[in-house]
């Protein structure tokens, strides 16, 4: 005989303001099988939980329904309380009378009636609940970090320093990401490379970190604690073991005029190259697309120049397979292509550059050794116009969001410029100055007050060349006047956008993304570093625009999540998994295709002599995530989901 306890929560006044909880308790008490029906102000609070436990023990309850808020809030809380009182936690169900009732209705009588329906339907379900036992799955204690920018490096180091193994995969020939390209960093003006390079080296030399550069993740299968990952090692044509990084090959390569990606096109590189002098690993790769040998079948000068024969033109892409327990995604961002703004002339006039190009000019190790020089004629500009929000906060041509860092780096650029060119003048066109952060407002104030940078609140409508100048027409909205400035150089504060392949990549590894291609967190406020897929975490700008401090914080947060997961040998999984009735299964394999987690296999049913009788679908409970897709697909109703069986759902519906 069922003995169900029903606990009706007022949730302060959240529920009781619209639902007559006393009346509801009395109504439900009449329902067959209900042994206890009580109401209380806050069941989630300690005394509330204690009263549930007491009721379970005293009345030998066989099931519990808590009529309260959404199960997403407190299902775990109440199930735990039930377990403490000796009841199988899966014999506890939540009737959501807050989000589904009191919050959305105004009429008290009708809301109370609806609450009774919802509660009764859960009582009917719980009567058919089964005592489920959690599934234990082993955890592979090895983390994969994808992306070797500052976020990825931080996450890898944190995990490795805690003693766990890490595989760090970076698709470029070197670690570093965008931070390696920066000159000095706001708000403290530390030299970016000086603070980053030691961490790059530490990551590369760490005994617990296996570094795979020039490598890409091609597939991720499996589930939390047990991912199978395939990584493509792109052919470098240079043997990593024997190459000493002497650079002889680079000096001999006849192809020297290739636009350097690292220098954003301002500098040049050879066909065999390292992205920058401090690259980690400091071993070159041959760029197949520009190498003379790969184009014409003749050259191999580098091979002959290499004294230890490290160059091998027959190298092929290789694939390696990894067993991984948790993944940190730190694939970073790109800057938007400013050519969409025809009126600013980016791509047309060489002296209209992006903020990232300015970083390369200002960098001591950059193509101009830190001198600010115009790309067109190599002269020092005496007047620079900076245009903020060149792409951000612009739904028509750019992106709707704020890139968060541009106000700060533009202030930094103007400041660096005033330090380097004492007689230089700079103007910044801005919409608002957003400088929230430790030391940030002080930083922008300093730019204005100490470095004499002129801030003009308004937009620029056109940039055109006149003699050797760039004429910038804008408006100063505070004075209500149009302004025209004759500038030597224009710097666009380009929007931060997701990597161009972000959506494709998200699909490959199985995580969700937003309309732009930034990866989605499980909950913006409460679970900001978890992705929507268990065991995959997010760090840095792949999730949203961020500066370095935020990227690093999120990376450390992700690392701590990974370490928490690795703190145990096994992982307890919810036993909410599907199973198949082999007698009725028709073997149509619809479910095999429909399962988004590849959890359904084909199984042979043999007779005693080993002859095949039929083939049926079989669910692997370790892989099944309990989504229920297969159940809804199966025409013959052969599949069922524990915790949400057809019998339970049917009773629930009939209870309404």
């Amino acid at each position: 005989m069922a003995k169900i306890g029903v606990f009706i929560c007022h949730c302060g006044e959240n529920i009781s303001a619209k639902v007559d909880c006393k009346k509801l308790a009395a109504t439900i008490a009449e329902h067959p099988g209900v042994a206890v029906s009580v109401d209380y102000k806050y069941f989630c609070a300690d005394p509330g939980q204690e009263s549930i436990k007491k009721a379970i023990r005293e009345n030998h309850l066989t099931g519990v329904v808590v009529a309260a808020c959404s199960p997403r809030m407190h299902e775990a809380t109440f199930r735990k309380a039930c377990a403490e009182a000796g009841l199988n936690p899966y014999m506890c169900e939540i009737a959501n009378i807050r989000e589904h009732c009191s919050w959305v209705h105004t009429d008290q009588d009708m809301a109370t009636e609806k609450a009774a329906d919802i509660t009764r339907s859960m009582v009917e379900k719980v009567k058919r609940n089964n005592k489920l036992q959690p599934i234990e799955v082993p955890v592979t204690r090895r983390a994969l970090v994808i992306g070797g920018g500052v976020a990825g490096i931080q996450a890898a180091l944190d995990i490795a320093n805690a003693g766990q193994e890490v595989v760090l995969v970076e698709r470029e020939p070197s670690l570093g990401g965008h931070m390696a390209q920066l000159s000095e960093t706001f708000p403290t003006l530390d030299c970016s490379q000086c603070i980053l390079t030691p961490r790059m080296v530490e990551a590369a030399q760490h005994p617990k970190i296996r570094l795979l550069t020039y490598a890409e993740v091609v597939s991720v299968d499996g589930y939390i604690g047990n991912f199978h990952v395939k990584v493509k090692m792109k052919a470098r044509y240079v043997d990593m073991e024997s190459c000493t990084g002497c650079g002889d090959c680079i000096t001999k390569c006849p192809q020297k005029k290739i636009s350097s990606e690292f220098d954003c096109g301002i500098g040049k590189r050879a066909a065999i190259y390292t992205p920058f002098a401090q690259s980690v690993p400091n071993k070159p790769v041959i760029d197949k697309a520009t190498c003379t040998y790969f184009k014409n079948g003749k050259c191999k000068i580098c091979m002959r120049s290499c004294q230890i024969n490290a160059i091998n033109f027959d190298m092929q892409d290789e694939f390696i397979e990894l067993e991984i327990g948790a993944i940190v995604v730190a694939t970073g961002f790109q800057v938007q292509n400013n050519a969409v703004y025809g009126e600013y002339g980016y791509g047309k006039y060489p002296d209209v550059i992006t903020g990232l190009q300015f970083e390369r000019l200002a960098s001591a190790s950059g193509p101009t050794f830190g001198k600010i020089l115009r790309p067109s004629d190599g002269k020092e500009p005496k007047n620079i116009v900076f245009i903020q929000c060149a792409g951000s906060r612009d739904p028509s041509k750019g992106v709707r969001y704020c890139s968060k860092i541009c106000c700060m780096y533009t202030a930094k650029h103007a400041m660096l410029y005033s330090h380097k060119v004492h007689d230089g003048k700079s103007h910044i066109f801005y919409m608002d100055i957003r400088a929230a952060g430790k030391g940030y407002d002080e930083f922008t104030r300093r730019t204005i007050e100490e470095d004499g940078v002129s801030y003009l609140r308004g937009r620029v409508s056109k940039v055109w060349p006149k003699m050797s100048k760039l004429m910038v027409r804008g408006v100063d909205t505070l004075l209500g006047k149009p302004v025209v400035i004759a500038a030597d150089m224009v710097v666009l504060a380009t929007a931060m956008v997701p990597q161009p392949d972000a959506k494709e990549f998200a699909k490959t590894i199985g995580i969700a993304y937003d309309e732009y291609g930034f990866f989605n967190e499980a909950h913006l406020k409460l679970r900001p570093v978890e992705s929507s897929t268990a065991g995959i975490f997010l760090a840095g700008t792949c999730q949203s625009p961020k500066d370095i401090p935020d990227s690093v914080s999120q990376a450390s947060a992700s690392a701590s999540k990974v370490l928490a997961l690795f703190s145990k040998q096994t992982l307890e999984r919810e036993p909410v998994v599907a199973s198949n009735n082999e007698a009725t299964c028709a073997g149509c394999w619809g479910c095999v295709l429909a399962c988004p987690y590849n959890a359904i296999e084909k199984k042979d049913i043999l007779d005693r002599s080993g002859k095949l009788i039929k083939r049926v679908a079989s669910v692997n409970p370790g892989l099944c995530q309990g989504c229920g897709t297969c159940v809804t697909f199966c025409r013959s109703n052969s599949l069922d989901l524990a915790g949400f069986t057809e019998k339970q759902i049917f009773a629930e519906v009939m209870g309404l």
Partner: protein
Amino acid sequence: MTIQETYKARVKKLLASGTVKMVIGYKPGTTADRRRPHFIRTPEEADQLVLDSACITNLSGYLLSEGLLSDEKAVAIFLKPDGIRSINILAAEAQLNSEQILILGFDSNDNQVTALEGEKVEEFTTLIESIKEQAPEALKNPLLEQIEGMTPKERFAFWQGEFSRCIKCYACRQACPMCYCRRCIVDCNQPQWVNTSSHTLGNFEWNIVRAFHLSGRCVGCGNCDRACPVNIPLRLINAKMAQEVLGAFDHFSGMSHTQEPVLASFKKDDSETFIL
């Protein structure tokens, strides 16, 4: 030689040479305009074979008779284009191995029967592609358009009227080659999702469930429609579902023996953002 005689000779040869163990075709039925299935195992039995414009039943469902294909020996079968598409679906859903099926294809138009070139199901791909191209037109139906023009209330009343005659004989299911389930959902009584009694609710439940189960799978052969003893226009429902999947997913049932079922598959580049 008439086409019937040509095919008769071919059937005899197929059986005599042992190329196939059985040929499934047609023989005279109870009345002059009806045909019944003929399971031909010997060349002599082929004498009774009939092939004319009255041969309209899609015979492919018989291939799934328990044990028929388990010895992996070839079986030949007379099929019109819709039946050929059924072979693709049954193969795609792992119910048979299309290698084992030898197709004796034919088509009939204006009481005229013509032979179709090819034996293996892949050989009919071009034909099926051209049928798909014509499908948007071919699936059109005046009554369907009339129903589409109704208000939801009128439409409900229309189908309530039609379904009210249903006696839950399940002849539609038995006649359908795609209704091969070992246990049909209506036979599932724990819980009983579909009411067995023939009242409004039960009849709606049954006919709507079956419509869903056949969307993206029905080839429009009309077996169910003809089997229904109370003349419910089942073909209309299935044609409507075929239009829907064609419009929404560019899916036309039975294109190939590796076609993925429309309701079970998803593409990574789907324009819907909820698909990861």
